[in-house]
Structures are given as structure tokens and as C-alpha cells.
């Protein structure tokens, strides 16, 4: 290498890739690693090992500190290695945070090599899992994850873009190394990639096109702006171009937004409850940091409202809340359900998301902050989980609709963790403003659902969206069940509906905008009320079902497989025999919901994915817990009603579900079924 010619010098510490100038052997030397482990012995050993690999190492023994480092120096690290068990924050939470905010590859490590923990790592999006004691050999190759992620990301961006930009950029591929070195600070990987280009790696060409483009770091503020813009436009109407315009951030390109939007959607989808194994969607979807949601639940209804009012909970606050919530949730087991739920939800979500989006591995949607959150991702073992998921999906949907923060809270609260199914059920039900069958008589309900409550009361009062969050979960659940794999979209619709309903109570306005799916939503406030009172789930389900079926046809999207969902409901109802015949009102809601669903492609997508997952889960889990089902049903209906109501409001009528999205390549069909 001719140092004289190339500006990048090996001694420069700012250039992470000393080899950027084209010396292949340099890379991976200089790889900037951040190691987090509360065990000082391990930390010291790792540090030494990494230094021996010629990496640049930064160590910290606390996750909070690690996050601070990462946030303060967004482009300062290439990869993060974290222990799983840490006192201040669960390693998986940190994993999510990093994925969402910084989108860096994260390697987990632990002395624990049990399959489920490793699986958890996978589902949370870790790019590798090391068993302690860690050996040198294992660390020598970690650079592959950095490269892989970059490539993947790049390709993702490529995909999102119409491709023209890339091509143009490609042409601009700077021939000299100098360019690369100068852009070293942008994305070190780019340099390394550039190097590869020089080495005639065809695929690297893509990288070169981005050489000149600095990697955008989605800071909390930026993400917040993004979320605001998306919410303003409405999730289904949020097109990268418009988002870009709304955000009005200099230097931000449409591709950046598009790629971020993709991740955000994945995140939402994940939140909406994914039954991972079923769909095998599990991709390295990084669940959006549960944190945002977690804290949400802890927020009281009032807080949520305030949040909702504000439009969006600033990521920071959310993060804070989350951290708090999470911490709380983590520590409490008996706690107020809402908190726990949140926690669980988060953990659930992650896995779910993963499944949902196999392809989108890197979606750490930072946006998730506002997204639905609370969708438990690990339902697999429990029925409740399923419920949660569904509930969460709704919740997430709701959240999305409203200002994520508020929603998540409500949802979260609602989404109770599996700890006690019945409990959860109740909670969910309760939260949904339906004083649903609380087999468990969850007290949580009251708190969990600020939204729910609103929803309930709101139904009547709410202008439109009276989404009874309560019903949502059940609805979701129901749907999911029936549809284990088909019509994921439908599930979403339902979910979203329910979610929306929750939100609506709170954020009616927001809901309107969000719920683009306004299709003849028939707010069945009455229904909700009824539901609240008793379990009319069975009926509702049936109604919903029929409604959905009808919807389906009308739903151009076709994603709403209402019928399937309805069917499921029916099943439930039959199982349940609650004897409530409140279905009729639900029916309408179902329709609206369906419509709404169609419109909210985004949501739908997300829902569907989550629903899809849920169904599988639900099926598996559906069990014997009839009471549970009842709860579900009622919730189901509640949600549907809400959804329809909301939808209706949004559209004031049936509108064909057209693809307003205009997303690049986004559409419900994306959902793997």
C-alpha cells in the first residue's frame, strides 16, 4: 500500500478500516468492537483476545453505559458483543435496542448453552451466539457479521429503491481509493467493501455506489421525526417520499427513509404478534426494543393520553419509560399485570417479529417506538401467549395508530404476559375496555387499559374509533387461530382494528388518520359495551366472521380473510358457548374492520404477519381454557367493533381498499403466508 497516496493511514484511528485503501489483509483489523459484560474477568479476557485479533475494543460492564457509548458515537462501532445475563438490563433488551437504534450486528454470549436461550438469541436478532468460555478462534471471525450485515443492508436499500439511484451511484463509483478513505468515517464497511470491489467482487459494486452516501444513523430524534411523519400520513399512506418531505431533514434521502420504513413496518408487524415457529418467518427480525412499549404499559391511562395527544412519545421518553417499565416488569412477577405484560410482550415480540419477517432481517425498527408493541412474541407455549399476541398485535396496531406511546401502554397493559393465562386473558379483556370475561377477574384491566377504558367509554363517546381494545385481543386471537397461515392479512385487519379501537378512544384523531381503512366501519359501541359486560364472545365471533367474509369479497386487498378469521371465531364460539349473542353488532364491526383492514395495508401487513403467527400459535395453544376463549371472543368482538367503527370513521363509508400505500414494494402480499 502506498500510504503516501492514500489519505487513510494505518495510524489513523478514526478510520476504522485501515485497509480501506485496498489492502485486503488489513480488514478485519481495526474492527471496532464494543463489549458488554458484567463479569470483570470475562471482560478482561475478551478485551485481550479482541486486541490480539487487532480489533479496536471498547469495554463496559453495564448495558446502560454501552447504550450511551453507542448513542454518543453513532458510527463509532461496527459490532457489539454482549453477555446475556446482566444485572441492569437483559442482554436481549440491549440487543433489541442496538438493532433498532443503531442497527449494528450484535453477538450474544453466555455460559448458558441451553437451546431455548440460544433460540432466544436468534429470535431477537443476534447475529451469533457464543458459549462461554469464549475462545480466540470464535472471536477471530466476528468480522464476518459486520460484512454480512452491510451487504444485506445495502441490498435492502437497493431493493427499496427503484434501483435507479443505485445505478447512478454505481456509476459514480469512485475509482480512487482516496474516495474511499475519505468516506471512511461514513461507513467503514463501505471502505472494506470498496476494497472488495477492487478485488472484483461483483456484489460489492453495490457498496461502491453507496460509498459516497454517508450512512444515516437513525438517532432517537430522527426516528421520532420519522414516526411523527408516518403517523401524520397514516401508516398505510406513508410513502417514503412523503415522509421525507414531512421530515424535512437535509441530507436525508428517500432511500434512507424507505429502508427505515421497511424496518419500521417489520417492527410493527413483529409487534402485532407473530407466531414464530409457525410461519417460519423468524428472521433476524429484531424486535423493536421492547422498551418503548414496556414503559408504555406502565404509563397510566392518563399518561398515555397525554402521549397520544402529543402525537408521539419521543423516543427518548419512550426509551426511558421502557427501561423503567422493563426493569419493572423484569423484576416483578406478580406485579401489576400491565407491567408484566409489557415485558412479556416485548420478549414475545421479538421472537415474533423474527418470524414474521424472515426476510427483513435487519429490521430493527426504531420506529417501533410508536409501534405496536406489546405483541408478545413468544406465545408458543401458552395460549395466553397467543392471546397476547393477538392482543398485542392489536395493541401494537393501536399504538401505531395513535401515538405509539400511548398505545403501547394501553396495549401493553392489556397484553398480559402468559404468567397466568387466565389472568392475562382477563387483563386483555379487561384492558379492552370490555369488562370481559374476566375469568380471572383481573384487576389489571383497569389499569392496563387506559385505552381500553377509553375505548369502552369512548365507544360511545368516541367519535369514531371506539376501538375497544378489549375485544381486540380476542379478536386477534381468534383470527389467528383460524388462520394459521392463510390470510395473515386478515388477522391483521382484525388486529389492527382492535388495536385501533383501543387507540381510538384515545386518539381519535390519530386513529382516523391512521386507520386509513375506513370502510364502512360500524361502530358498535353498544356491542362493546355489551361485551364488556359479559361474554358475548361467541356471538361476536360469529358475527365477525360473517362480516369478515363479506368483507373479504369486498376487500380488494384480499388480504383480509375475514372468513377464515370468522371461522375461527366460530370455532371459538362453539367452544365457548358463551351464549352471548351479541354478535350482530359485531358483524357490522367486522365489516368495517375488514374494510379498514384492507385500507390499512400497513397495519394489515403487520397484522397479518402477526396474525399469521398468532394463528399458529393460537391453534396450538388454544386450549382447553374455555374461559379463556370466552374472554377472547368478547375481546374479539370488541375489537372488531372498534375497528369497524374506526374504519368507518376514517372513511366514512366503504371505500375500496386500494393501495394507497404506494410503498415501494410494500404491500400486504409481502406477508409470508
Amino acid at each position: 500500500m502506498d500510504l503516501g497516496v492514500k489519505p487513510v493511514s494505518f495510524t489513523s484511528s478514526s478510520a476504522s478500516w485501515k485497509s480501506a485503501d485496498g489492502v485486503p489483509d488489513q480488514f478485519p483489523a481495526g474492527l471496532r468492537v464494543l463489549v458488554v459484560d458484567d463479569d470483570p474477568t470475562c471482560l478482561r479476557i475478551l478485551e485481550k483476545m479482541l486486541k490480539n485479533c487487532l480489533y479496536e475494543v471498547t469495554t463496559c460492564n453495564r448495558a446502560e453505559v454501552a447504550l450511551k457509548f453507542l448513542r454518543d458515537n453513532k458510527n463509532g462501532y461496527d459490532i457489539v458483543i454482549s453477555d446475556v445475563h446482566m444485572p441492569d438490563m437483559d442482554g436481549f433488551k440491549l440487543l433489541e435496542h442496538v438493532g433498532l437504534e443503531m442497527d449494528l450486528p450484535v453477538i450474544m454470549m453466555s455460559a448458558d448453552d441451553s437451546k431455548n436461550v440460544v433460540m432466544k438469541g436468534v429470535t431477537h436478532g443476534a447475529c451469533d451466539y457464543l458459549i462461554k468460555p469464549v475462545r480466540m478462534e470464535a472471536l477471530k471471525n466476528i468480522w464476518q457479521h459486520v460484512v454480512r450485515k452491510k451487504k444485506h443492508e445495502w441490498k435492502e436499500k437497493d431493493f427499496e429503491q427503484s434501483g435507479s439511484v443505485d445505478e447512478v451511484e454505481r456509476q459514480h463509483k469512485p475509482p480512487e481509493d482516496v474516495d474511499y478513505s475519505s468516506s471512511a468515517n461514513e461507513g467503514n464497511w463501505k471502505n472494506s467493501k470498496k476494497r472488495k470491489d477492487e478485488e472484483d467482487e461483483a456484489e460489492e459494486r453495490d457498496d461502491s455506489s453507496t460509498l459516497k452516501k454517508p450512512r444515516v444513523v437513525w438517532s432517537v430524534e430522527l426516528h421520532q421525526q420519522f414516526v411523527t411523519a408516518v403517523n401524520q400520513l397514516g401508516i398505510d399512506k406513508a410513502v417514503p417520499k412523503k415522509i421525507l418531505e414531512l421530515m424535512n431533514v437535509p441530507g436525508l434521502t428517500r432511500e434512507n427513509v424507505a429502508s427505515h420504513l421497511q424496518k419500521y413496518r417489520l417492527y410493527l408487524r413483529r409487534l402485532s404478534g407473530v407466531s414464530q415457529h409457525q410461519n417460519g418467518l423468524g428472521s433476524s427480525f429484531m424486535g423493536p426494543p421492547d422498551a418503548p412499549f414496556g414503559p408504555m404499559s406502565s404509563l397510566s391511562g392518563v399518561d398515555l393520553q397525554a402521549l397520544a395527544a402529543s402525537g408521539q412519545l419521543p423516543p427518548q421518553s419512550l426509551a426511558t419509560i421502557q427501561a423503567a417499565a422493563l426493569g419493572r416488569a423484569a423484576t416483578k412477577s406478580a406485579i401489576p399485570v400491565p407491567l408484566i405484560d409489557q415485558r412479556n410482550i416485548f420478549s414475545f415480540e421479538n421472537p415474533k417479529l423474527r418470524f414474521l419477517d424472515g426476510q427483513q432481517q435487519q429490521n430493527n425498527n426504531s420506529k417501533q417506538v410508536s409501534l405496536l408493541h406489546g405483541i408478545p412474541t413468544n406465545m408458543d407455549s401458552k395460549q395466553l401467549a397467543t392471546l397476547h399476541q393477538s392482543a398485542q398485535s392489536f395493541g401494537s396496531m393501536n399504538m401505531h395508530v395513535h401515538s405509539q406511546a400511548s398505545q403501547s401502554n394501553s396495549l401493553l397493559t392489556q397484553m398480559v404476559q402468559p404468567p397466568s393465562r387466565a389472568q392475562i386473558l382477563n387483563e386483555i379483556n379487561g384492558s379492552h375496555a370490555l369488562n370481559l370475561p374476566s375469568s380471572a377477574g383481573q384487576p389489571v384491566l383497569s389499569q392496563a387499559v387506559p385505552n381500553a377504558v377509553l375505548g369502552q367509554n369512548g365507544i360511545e363517546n368516541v367519535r369514531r374509533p371506539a376501538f375497544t381494545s378489549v375485544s381486540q385481543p380476542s379478536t386477534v386471537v381468534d383470527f389467528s387461530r383460524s388462520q394459521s397461515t392463510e390470510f395473515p392479512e386478515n388477522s391483521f385487519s382484525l388486529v389492527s382494528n382492535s388495536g385501533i379501537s383501543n387507540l381510538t378512544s384515545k386518539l381519535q384523531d390519530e386513529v382516523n388518520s391512521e386507520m386509513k381503512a375506513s370502510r364502512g366501519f360500524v361502530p358498535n359501541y353498544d356491542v362493546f359495551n355489551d361485551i364488556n359486560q359479559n361474554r358475548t364472545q361467541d356471538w361476536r365471533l360469529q358475527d365477525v366472521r360473517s362480516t369478515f367474509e363479506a368483507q373479504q369479497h369486498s376487500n380488494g386487498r384480499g388480504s383480509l380473510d375475514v372468513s377464515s378469521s370468522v371461522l375461527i371465531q366460530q370455532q371459538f364460539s362453539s367452544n365457548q358457548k358463551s351464549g352471548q349473542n351479541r354478535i350482530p353488532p359485531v358483524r357490522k364491526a367486522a365489516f368495517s374492520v375488514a374494510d379498514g383492514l384492507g385500507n390499512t395495508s400497513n397495519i394489515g401487513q403487520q397484522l397479518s404477519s402477526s396474525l399469521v403467527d398468532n394463528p399458529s400459535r393460537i391453534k396450538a395453544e388454544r386450549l382447553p381454557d374455555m374461559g379463556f376463549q370466552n374472554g377472547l371472543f368478547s375481546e374479539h368482538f370488541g375489537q372488531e367493533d372498534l375497528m369497524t367503527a374506526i374504519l368507518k370513521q376514517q372513511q366514512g363509508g366503504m371505500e375500496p381498499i386500494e393501495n394507497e400505500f404506494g410503498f415501494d414494494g410494500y404491500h400486504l402480499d409481502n406477508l409470508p403466508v
Partner: protein
Amino acid sequence: MQRQLANMKQSLFDQGYLDEQFIQLEELQDDANPNFVEEVVTLYYRDSARLIHNIEQALEKNPLDFGKLDSYMHQFKGSSSSIGAKKVKIECTQFREYCRTGNAEGCKKTFQQLKKEYATLKKKLEVYFQVARQAGPVEKACRPK
């Protein structure tokens, strides 16, 4: 001196006090960090003393909180395995197994055994490092046969 050192090390391995991980540590030792292994082991003993204390306190409670005990032991095991403390690690695994089955007596007994191994290893390593320092800087550690 060096031979004595090598013999000591060999014996520690043969007796099962140390395992492969210790070799990894030695391989990390270089001119820039000539006492790396000793530093790490010292760090380990200092930090793990705290853990041992916590576990002891937890073992005095009644009834035992197996979850917490397991969690402490998990940490302890992780630390111990990173320096290659083989026998200690084995006791940790046994302890965790008793936690899993809720066997309080088993836990207590195993813990006593663990402390013994822990103390024995500490002494042996202290001697080892003393000799190592006297023997002066050596090239890369050779793997014991």
C-alpha cells in the same frame, strides 16, 4: 525454574484443576502483557469472592430461593470457566443441578465442596505465579501434553 514451572502446570492439568481455557489465557500473554494470566486470575478471585459471599448468604435463608441461587451460580460458573478452573466448574454444574431439583441439602453440600476446590486452586495458582515470576518471562506457554 522454567522446567519447574512447566511441571507444575502439567500437574495442575493432569489433576484436573485447570483446563484448556487456561491455555487460551496463556496464549494471550505477550510482551506487552507479561503477567496477563496472573492479572486475570487475581481479578477472578476478587470478583468471585463477592459472589461466594452472596451465595453463602442466600444459602442461609429459609426456605432457599433456588432461582436466585441458580442465577448466582450461573455467574460464578461463567467466571470460573473463563479462567479454566475445571474442578470449580464441575462443582458449579452440580450445584445448579441441585437447584433445579430443589435439593437444598445437595446445594449446601456441593457448595462446601465448591469452596474447597476454589480455595485449593487459589493456593496452587498463587504458587504457580510466584514461580512464574521468578522464572522470568517465557515464550509462549507450551501446551501440556
